[in-house]
């Protein structure tokens, strides 16, 4: 066993920190500080995406030949740590973390040639059309239907929880192409070149935090080319399962973000008087709680680092589900702690002050502005991408005595 602490790595860290200190615009920085979700404010996030693309750092986890950086595990972690320390908006996962890696793995050469570069460049943004009003945890029961018609499919039905569909220009989705056999068998995975095909309608859904992050997408006789299919017709379930590994397990490590939440909570606590005297940061109960949270986040970090290094832990079939479960529940715990530090100053609804570029002053600190929306939004983490109940079902299936 060993961990390298080579001097080159410190030089790399300095290079990354320098870039993060100079490259982002003020609006990008503001968007980073005001991110209260997995999904950062769209416009500034994509601006930042394009700056990172120019630098060649937009997709560290992609293979070098497709535009990845070829960094070591240590470098990727240093990059992630510095990224979070700088409070920069996280890049959106749908294109870079989901459909991109999927196409690299199993797309046709034509699909790769057509789609990967615009993803890297930040020209395209893909929405994910999986869930339906009656198919949540039971995703395989989806009924949005695609009928073959010549070289096309005709789609009818609807999708829901399609994050940022109102910002997207492309969409990947699961459709039902057959009702024969098991419900998993008649599903097909489609890439849609446009999100404004005739017959498509997108309706944003206002969330409990007041933001329209999710959408519902309706299809009425929408004609799309069959060439957008990934994998075989009726074999979309295995394509989706392949992709889920990227969604749940891979992509970016979550622990640096979580540790950053703790740092922000500590900084705010140091300015907050405790009803028991001194500041909240000095309070034994706060220290006990944040200490446990940080220990749990550290364990997630260890888990992530072992996985990225190629340790057998990542080959456990339960790995993606464990990663998703641990991460989502820690986001919730961290955000609870943040709202506790904010106290009553988190109870004001400040949608306008939260907008990037707003000239409305927050009522309290910037920390108090984001803590409650973050908490509210984070209630979704144990629901989306396969609810934690479904994840635990999957994990349990890998536990048997013999």
């Amino acid at each position, binding site marked *: 066993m060993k961990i390298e602490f080579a001097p080159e790595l410190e030089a790399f860290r300095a290079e990354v920190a320098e870039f993060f200190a100079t490259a982002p615009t003020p609006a990008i920085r503001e968007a980073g500080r005001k991110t209260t979700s997995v999904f950062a404010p769209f416009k500034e996030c994509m601006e930042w995406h394009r700056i990172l693309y120019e630098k060649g750092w937009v997709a560290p986890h992609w293979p070098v030949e497709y535009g990845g950086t070829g960094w070591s595990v240590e470098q990727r972690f240093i990059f992630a740590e510095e990224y979070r320390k700088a409070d920069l908006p996280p890049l959106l996962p749908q294109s870079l973390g989901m459909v991109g890696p999927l196409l690299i793995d199993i797309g046709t050469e034509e699909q790769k040639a057509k789609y990967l570069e615009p993803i890297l460049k930040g020209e395209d943004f893909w929405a994910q059309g999986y869930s339906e009003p009656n198919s949540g945890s039971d995703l395989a029961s989806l009924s949005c239907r695609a009928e073959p018609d010549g070289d096309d499919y005709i789609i009818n039905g609807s999708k829901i929880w399609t994050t940022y569909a109102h910002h997207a220009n492309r969409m990947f989705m699961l459709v039902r192409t057959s009702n024969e056999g098991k419900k998993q068998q008649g599903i097909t995975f489609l890439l849609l070149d446009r999100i404004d095909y005739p017959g498509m309608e997108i309706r944003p859904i206002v969330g*409990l935090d007041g933001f329209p992050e999710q959408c519902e997408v309706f299809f009425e006789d929408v004609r799309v080319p069959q060439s957008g299919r990934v994998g075989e017709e009726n074999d979309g379930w295995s394509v989706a399962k392949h992709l889920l590994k990227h969604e749940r397990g891979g992509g970016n490590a979550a622990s640096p973000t979580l540790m950053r939440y703790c740092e922000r909570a500590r900084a705010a606590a140091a300015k907050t008087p405790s009803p028991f005297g001194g500041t909240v940061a000095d309070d034994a109960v706060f220290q006990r709680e944040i200490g446990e949270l940080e220990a749990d986040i550290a364990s997630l970090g260890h888990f992530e680092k072992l996985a990225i290094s190629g340790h057998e832990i990542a080959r456990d079939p339960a790995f993606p589900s464990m990663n998703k479960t641990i991460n989502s529940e820690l986001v919730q715990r961290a955000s609870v702690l943040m709202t506790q530090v904010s106290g*009553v100053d988190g109870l004001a609804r*400040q949608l306008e002050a939260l907008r990037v570029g707003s000239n409305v002053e927050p009522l309290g600190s910037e920390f108090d502005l984001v803590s409650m929306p973050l908490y509210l939004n984070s209630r979704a983490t*144990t*629901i989306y991408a396969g609810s934690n109940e479904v994840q635990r079902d999957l994990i349990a299936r890998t536990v048997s005595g013999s």
Partner: protein
Amino acid sequence: MDFSFTDEQQMLRDGVGKFLEKSYDFDARQKLVNSDAPWSADAWQQFAEFGLLALPFSEEQGGLGGSISDCVAFAELFGRHLVIEPYLGSVMLAGSALAQSGHAAAQEWVERIVSGEAVVAFAFEEGHGTASPELVAMTAQGSGNSARLTGEKRLVHGGADADAIVVLARKGEGGPPAFFLVEAGADGLDARAYTTIDGRSAANVSFNDVAATELEASEEAVEKIIADAIIVQSAEAVGAMGALVAITGEYAHTRKQFGVPIATFQAVAHRLADMKIAYTKARATLIYTTALAESGAATPRDIAILKGQVGKLGRAVGEAAIQTHGGVGMTDELSVSHYHKRLLACDTTFGDHAYHFRKVGMG
């Protein structure tokens, strides 16, 4: 021991409940929250007609001489319907502060509150969480009719719209907390209004050498007024919890996944069971503490236990309700998230559950 509502209280519940069912359903409530009005003047008038605005005041003061259990009786319904009107601030807090004062101006304000003619806000919080009167730092200069207030109060419900504000502040440097009356529009008074996550109109109010009238009050009176407000707010929270248990139970028996109602999944079923346990515990503590208070025997420890339990259990019920609903529980459209936000607000004001549990632990 008798922990049941009296026939009269049950009648009051029936009446208020029918009115709210009819005129204050969730859609109406949301329309109100999203309107420019800080609250519903119609509903307020209706509360006056039911006698709710007069309830806690003595008959000599034009009130009905009601008890704390009378208030609990209908406050559960306020919680069930997510009522946003400033009953707690104007009646339970500001009203009681005025009523216990011998000051002539105070008596006039009580009459106007009782008739529904005026709403008076109550300014207590000073930021991050002012859990108890002993933590109030704002200090009045001068006393009697010529007191002056400087500083900021936060989360003042109705603070920008009320006809007057009762402020809790110290009587001079290091002095005990006392109530001060400030009229709306007073020089040096500035309110920045906003809506809270639970749909209420509130304001952060800054005082710049504002003229105020001191309402003499013993420390015990201050403590008792806050304690009674905590009981009534807890009743609201328990009402909201009960609504969430019912709504979530209904949803779990209706919503199908994998071909069966999700209530048939043991993880969902056990979460429903935990919700019911939490609600039942919280309600038992509400009722017992109300009966204690009614008998004049509720100690600060009893109030801390109630506030802590309702805060913790309410949060847990809200989070469980959202998780059980899945995606739709995350939307602004369903009532579930609004109940949860109300429960969060109840936990957070007057000290959250962590504060109160620690107070209990300090013995």
